[in-house]
């Protein structure tokens, strides 16, 4: 394998980082490649991809508006838009900082759907505040649909764990179709490496109605689906703990006492080992 493809392969591992550990994985990759210059050209697109996948939250320069970095509000190669403040800004994926905010020339179809977008954003904000203690929300008009992104992260590396809940919901106002998927990832790493990886997707139809009512309906459906998913995760845990885990190894033998090693060892060796030493 050429040196260049080895570096590209190493860089791609970044996309598998557990939540909150991109920097640690990046440092490991740096240590393995041991050639910062060569790594630089491979790592930047990967960092951009990683930040967008994680729905990284940042602050729009000169405002206190928080906005998510996602594939759905990307403008050109290095810019992102914030529909709430109608600005575009440049994002440095390596340092994770935003700069050079400027007024956003909102495309006409986005303009057209702005009232619905705003209504949906307001409804979902109520929902996110009610169910995600540290959640962030973004609603963007993207390629003919309103895309809502919800992300909730809890990072506690000093306690050796990190977790992330990420939802993306796409609503096409013309067809009335609502499609979404949620991904949950948890990493526990005190003297080990334990990870939860689960995701699901949903679909529903929402008929044409008054904008504000429609936004409420969409938000209610999202809330319902996500609650159902959280419930099914709980059911899954119960199944794994009570059936799967118990079926792997008993806590004690059927005899209800520990193994008698002296009896077994003597029985199986017989006189063999004693003879060997004689």
């Amino acid at each position, binding site marked *: 394998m050429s040196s260049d493809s080895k570096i590209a392969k190493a860089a791609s591992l970044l996309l598998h980082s557990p939540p909150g550990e991109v920097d640690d994985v990046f440092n490991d990759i740096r240590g*393995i490649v041991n050639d910062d210059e060569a790594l630089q050209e491979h790592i930047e697109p990967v960092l951009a991809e990683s930040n967008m996948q994680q729905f990284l939250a940042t602050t729009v320069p000169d405002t206190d508006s928080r906005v998510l970095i996602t594939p759905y509000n990307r403008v050109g190669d290095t810019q992102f838009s914030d529909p709430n403040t109608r600005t575009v800004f440049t994002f440095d994926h390596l340092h994770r900082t935003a700069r050079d905010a400027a007024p956003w020339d909102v495309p006409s179809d986005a303009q057209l759907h702005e009232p619905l977008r705003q209504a949906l954003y307001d409804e979902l904000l109520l929902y996110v505040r009610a169910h995600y*203690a540290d959640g962030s929300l973004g609603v963007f008009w993207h390629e003919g649909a309103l895309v809502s992104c919800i992300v909730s992260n809890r990072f506690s590396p000093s306690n050796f764990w990190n977790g992330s809940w990420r939802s993306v919901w796409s609503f096409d106002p013309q067809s009335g179709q609502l499609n979404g998927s949620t991904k949950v990832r948890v990493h526990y790493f005190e003297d080990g490496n334990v990870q939860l990886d689960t995701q699901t997707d949903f679909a529903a139809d929402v008929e044409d109605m008054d904008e504000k009512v429609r936004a409420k309906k969409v938000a209610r459906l999202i809330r319902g689906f996500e609650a159902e998913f959280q419930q099914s995760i709980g059911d899954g845990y119960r199944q794994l703990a009570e059936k799967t885990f118990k079926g792997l190894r008993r806590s004690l033998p059927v005899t209800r006492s520990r193994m008698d090693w002296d009896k077994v060892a003597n029985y199986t060796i017989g006189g063999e080992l004693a003879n060997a030493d004689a």
Partner: protein
Amino acid sequence: MADYEENEQQMDCALDLMRRLPPQSVEENLVTLLEVLPELTEDLLAAVDQPLKVRQDASTGKEYLVCDYNRDGDSYRSPWTNTYDPPLADGNVPSERLRKLEASANDAFSTYKDLYYEGGVSSVYLWDMDESFAGVVLIKKVNDGTVRSKGSWDSIHVVEVLETGRQARYKLTSTVMLYTVASGARGDRQSEINLSGSLTRQDERELLVEDPNAHVANIGRMVEDMEFKMRNSLQEVYFGKTHDIVNGLRSAADLGEAKTRELLQRDLFGQLKSRKD
């Protein structure tokens, strides 16, 4: 940077990476690392734990587990026949004295495995060292009986033994890999709940060795105690801790309502208290 230093740094980073990358794809992750660091192949294969693979003795039909410790080139040694598959003219085998101990350890741990796992496969491999010997106790159990969920348990217990007269010091490093998968609400693969990984613990004891047999019993009790502790830790971490973290990411109940209820309770408590006073 000197070659040796560079290799050590790369090894450290590779091992740290393996502790962060999803255990669900541990084999693919290792393959990627081997492609990126082919010069560290032997070291990585020895240091990175992988789910154990099962092989079968052609002659007896007995199953055994394979890992780096019973590998010589591309062949693996059976603990039941002490021969390599594919055959090797002069593959690595333990000394005669050690082989006797290894054979009795395999029998003892086979009983242990039946008592606790009610199935599964076990294997013990010993190897001579300068001052004494070392070994690994392997156990694998797979539970894929139901449609709704499946799992597998892999125990890898590495023990270093230092004999000093009628005593011996045992250093045990144990890893248990636990993979569990439940099908999602609609029973499809799309919404699986995959909870997998491993925990590692260590123990050290100095015990009497009245006769050579004692090693099997000493190691046996250490492994049994260790698995007892680890089973509890696994249960706590997997089905307690990680679930708590999920419920911390999203609250099933309305946070606002919970807060209002809390304030109401505090208010009520305050009123009751002032009535008592």
